[in-house]
């Protein structure tokens, strides 16, 4: 049985890796799909323009929303799993 202190440490590690993964997606979508990789996606057309344009004006915001709600859901679960909830 882990001590509460050890559990707090593993909880923080789990949080850090979750944040890291979410921010990788955040960066790839916002700076990648919408800006830097846009020329690579130009073959995929959507409504008179290409996928990169859609990501810059709408898709990125949808991904941001999904990331925050996913993070909140996962963390609230981790809080309970590690016994650190309020």
């Amino acid at each position, binding site marked *: 049985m882990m001590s509460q202190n050890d559990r*707090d440490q593993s*909880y*923080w590690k789990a*949080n850090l890796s979750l*944040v890291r993964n*979410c*921010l990788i997606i*955040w960066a790839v979508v*916002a*700076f990648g799909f*919408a*800006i*830097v990789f*846009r020329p690579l996606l130009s073959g995929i057309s*959507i*409504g*008179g*323009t*290409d996928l990169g*344009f*859609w990501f*810059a*004006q*709408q898709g*990125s*915001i949808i991904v*941001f*929303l999904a*990331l*925050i*709600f996913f*993070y*909140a859901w996962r*963390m*609230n679960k981790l*809080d309970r799993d590690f*016994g*650190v*909830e*309020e």
Partner: protein
Amino acid sequence: METQTLIYLVVGGTFALYVGIAIWARAGSTGEFYAAGRGIHPVTNGMATAADWMSAASFISMAGLIAFTGYGNSSFLMGWTGGYVLLAMLLAPYLRKFGKYTVPEFIGDRFYSQTARLVAVVCLIIISVTYVIGQMTGVGVTFARFLQVSTETGLYIGSAVVFVYAVLGGMKGITYTQVAQYVVLITAYTIPAIFISLNLTGNPVPPLGLFSEHTASGVPLLQRLDEVIVSLGFAQYTTLNTSMFNMVLFTLALMIGTAGLPHVIIRFFTVPKVADARWSAGWALVFIAILYFTAPSVGAMARLNIVDTIQIGEVGSPEGNLAYENRPDWFQTWETTGLLKFEDKNADGRIQYYNEANAAFAAQAQEWGWAGNELTVNPDILVLANPEIANLPGWVIALVAAGGLAAALSTAAGLLLAISSAISHDLLKSAIMPSISEKGELLAARIAMAGAIVLATWLGLNPPGFAAQTVALAFGLAASSIFPVLMMGIFSKRINNMGAIAGMLTGILSTCLYIFTYLGWFFIPGTNMIANTPDNWLFGIAPASFGVVGAILNFAVAYGVSRATAAPPQEIQDLVESVRIPRGAGGAVAH
């Protein structure tokens, strides 16, 4: 009923509502004044945060900023929403766990330094005061455009309303007023957008309409927009016409800046639990996204609408341009405001609207007998004139007036609270009069709020000439000072008092220096040392994007100095441990 009467009724009605809410939600303690007693439901807080965040710039100007630049200004859309991902994962839950009232208070406690706290107070005040100027001018402008009163009178009325609900209710009153203001502003923004989308594409959902077929021409709307504006010498709408590097940097600067704005951060102190702070960031972005999905649609559609109104036939043919005497009613209405200006340079009685800065096209235009672009369109008009362009009834116009005021007043109130709590809590209670009673502090907070409103009104009446450029400064400072120091305070146990102070000062000074070098010392025209052109920028970094570099310098210096000096004492390391774990947050921490 007359449109003018409707405007008075709707604006007057919303103001009465805000005052009514203030009387119902009076603050009885400092906990209520600073953090609404930490009893706000996460969805309610999300809505209040959305109104707090979406300013006169988001409501009035953003669609126009996107419309006249196109794809390149998607930075505003991603930057002003992507910051919430950083807030939700890197700052909000931990600062809520810390459980105090102000942003400088966390910095002072975590870095066990009154100096660090004071540096943070100075940053907060510079950021919030520059930001509030824009809101107050927004209030004055909206009044002058719609209510036919002078800008001054408009400002006094707006300030008086804020005075009542902010001084009386503090954070508690502001929260519930912001919820009402959100409902007003989002309704006002979306209704005209739905109609313009229906008119142009037959699709009632503006974000879908943007990627649909343009009914009149049978080609996709964005393709049609590209064709039409390119035929008049403008750059393509859907392509990047500036540097990719700067687009990335500017987007990132807006994201970090958003996450570092104190008036947004303190909204997350009002929810009951750490878990609520996480959900609340998501809800805030839901409510913000409704406007941010609509804005680019409004921008593209309104621009196409304006060009199609002016260029009625083939480009270059004598009959191709609208005769001035046939201009529509809304054109006449907005000419009187000066936001739309026509000058018949070639005296042919017709309106020529094209990109005269495009040398090849200008030469071609000269052959057609065009003597220069004759129409000046202020970008703000796209949102403000939208209901008239779409021929909507008077009550929609009235709603847009009330919406513009709601956006400006809700943001102003949040900024004023950040300023007044920094003064009464961080300066007075912590530094000058630690023995002050709770009642005394509450009174001081109210007096500070009143003083901040008087200052903001004065700045609105006498806006410094640089009002438009201060946005770069506010976001640059939030990105280079507040955001890095908060993040390091949570994610590192090793950063100490010396490191934090050195880092913040480096971030602030480098950012101010870079901005002032290109835009003039304190924005005084003519005092810039280097002309503000892309060729002159250091490594091609635009002044508005420099917050990112300032933040990196802040991180680097704070790390270096902390390594070279003693580690923080054990109790500070324990404090960091406790901030990371939700357990034991409870209600407001007693002071």
